[in-house]
């Protein structure tokens, strides 16, 4: 499997001025991301997950260690455009990401800066807006849209740059439940079309959609694996102030109450099936 991102012994410190000790936000983190994979990175507030996201496309440069994006070192100033073309990023607050007064201009901003041919920009903008189901809004003003719609425009702006990798840094944190669902549907679709997706999130219900979950704690990787495996380790997860998905919690309590569902169920449909099977046996 091709590796699109390689993180080697990444340490990142925030300087707090001359008289204060720097704060170590990431401490010796190493992992690789496979082409076309969907990885969720979770951790409590202050665990280093947003710092990690910003290190993955050169917005932050490692204090020590290295990050390679399709072979380009983020420490290399010359490579930064190559890296940004390959790894796009969607942030938490859609209001901070929109630059233009018309939706389609906003989406065109990225490819324009890449020097893409105008006819090609036209095609990319139309396709990107279709991808996020916002085609009919292309002449609208972004500030009149809902939070979920604005976030979809921000995603279209990244998609139009045709990156191999898209990093989502808590893209649903400020949205209402409807907006959250819209964005998750689009993330899954982009992954389905072959994009490599990295999703930073607080929501376990979003993390279980990924094929790999990395849990960060105090700047280090605590757990890394398939969601089914990770969420079995309930005690370790609770230890670092995180929750397990609701189905895992329900499953544990059902087992404790003497109901024999399989351990480690994370998805609703699997739990429904397990319970119905027990019912039919009685």
């Amino acid at each position: 499997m091709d590796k699109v991102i390689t993180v080697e012994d990444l340490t990142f410190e925030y300087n707090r001025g001359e008289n204060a000790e720097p704060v170590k936000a990431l401490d010796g983190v190493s992992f690789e991301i496979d082409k076309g994979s969907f990885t969720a990175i979770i951790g409590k507030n202050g665990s280093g997950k947003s710092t990690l996201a910003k290190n993955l496309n050169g917005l932050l440069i490692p204090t020590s260690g290295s990050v390679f994006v399709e072979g380009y070192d983020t420490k290399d100033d010359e490579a930064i455009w190559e890296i940004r073309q390959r790894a796009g990023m969607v942030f938490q607050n859609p209001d901070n990401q929109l630059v233009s007064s018309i939706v389609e201009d906003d989406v065109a901003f990225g490819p324009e800066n890449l020097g893409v041919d105008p006819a090609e920009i036209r095609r990319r903008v139309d396709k990107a807006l279709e991808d996020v189901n916002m085609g009919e809004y292309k002449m609208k003003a972004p500030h009149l849209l809902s939070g979920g719609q604005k976030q979809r425009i921000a995603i279209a702006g990244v998609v139009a740059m045709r990156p191999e990798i898209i990093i989502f840094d808590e893209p649903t944190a400020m949205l209402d439940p409807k907006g959250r669902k819209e964005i998750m549907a689009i993330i899954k679709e982009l992954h389905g079309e072959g994009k490599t997706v990295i999703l930073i999130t607080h929501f376990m219900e979003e993390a279980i959609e990924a094929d790999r979950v990395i849990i960060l704690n105090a700047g280090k990787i605590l757990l890394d694996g398939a969601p089914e495996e990770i969420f079995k380790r309930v005690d370790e997860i609770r230890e670092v102030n995180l929750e397990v998905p609701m189905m895992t919690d329900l499953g544990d309590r059902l087992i404790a109450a003497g109901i024999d569902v399989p351990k480690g169920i994370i998805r609703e449909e699997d739990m429904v099936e397990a319970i119905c099977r027990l019912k039919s046996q009685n």
Partner: protein
Amino acid sequence: MPIKVSKLTHIYDEGMPTEQVALEDVSFTVEDGEILGIIGHTGSGKSTLLQHLDGLLKPNSGSILIGDVDITKPGVSLVDIRKRVGLVFQYPEYQLFEETVEKDVAYGPGNLGLSQEEISERVREAITLVGLDFDTVKDRSPFELSGGQKRAVAIAGVIAMRPQVLILDEPTAGLDPKTHDDILNMIRTIHQRTGNMIILVSHNMGDIAEIADKVLVMDTGKAIAYGTPIEIFSKGEKLREVGLDLPPVTEFCRKLGIPETVLTVDQAVQKIKEFIGA
């Protein structure tokens, strides 16, 4: 001292081409010591309603009685309203500004013309009430605290005004699961200790199901339903029509075909046990 909101109507840009009815004939009552949850899709009028309760907006018609005072009347000063109603905005930690936690929490009561001793006492009480250790945090910069602690300090700043009604707009948004639970427990503690009325606006149906005594559902500026969490969350179809969800555990039990409305995981365990006939 109950709150009685009667036929509240607010029209933005009245008489202009951009005229928009943001609230239309909204009426509800909150009884002493109750927690009211307000739910509604983005744009349903929740924020406009809150701004009326805090005196930031005046209605085109209707009234808000807190005890026997109608706070929508022209003669009522904002200071009088602030003594009765405390509003904690979304992401309140963005409003912290002082050098120390103690000074930040003291800012509100400092504007009420209280004595220095009274202010100090209130500040100590409020910081303790939000679950922080007064002596440990009082001299620290609020900006050095964790996200959850910052939010707690911001809430303490409002509690120190000793409002009869405490309104919280999305108090758990953007927090990790543990901090989320901490803030929810903190709200319960404040409620038990002070006995004030709490109005909680949230997109998190699980929170509302867990903590509210009554629920008000808003849609396109109207109050379309009002009742206990059980009553409200047994109307799944109606909620879906206005863009709202059931709490995840309620939804799950419905999918299983459990006829009763389940609001917590503990209840779900019990009902599933009965359901499979174990």
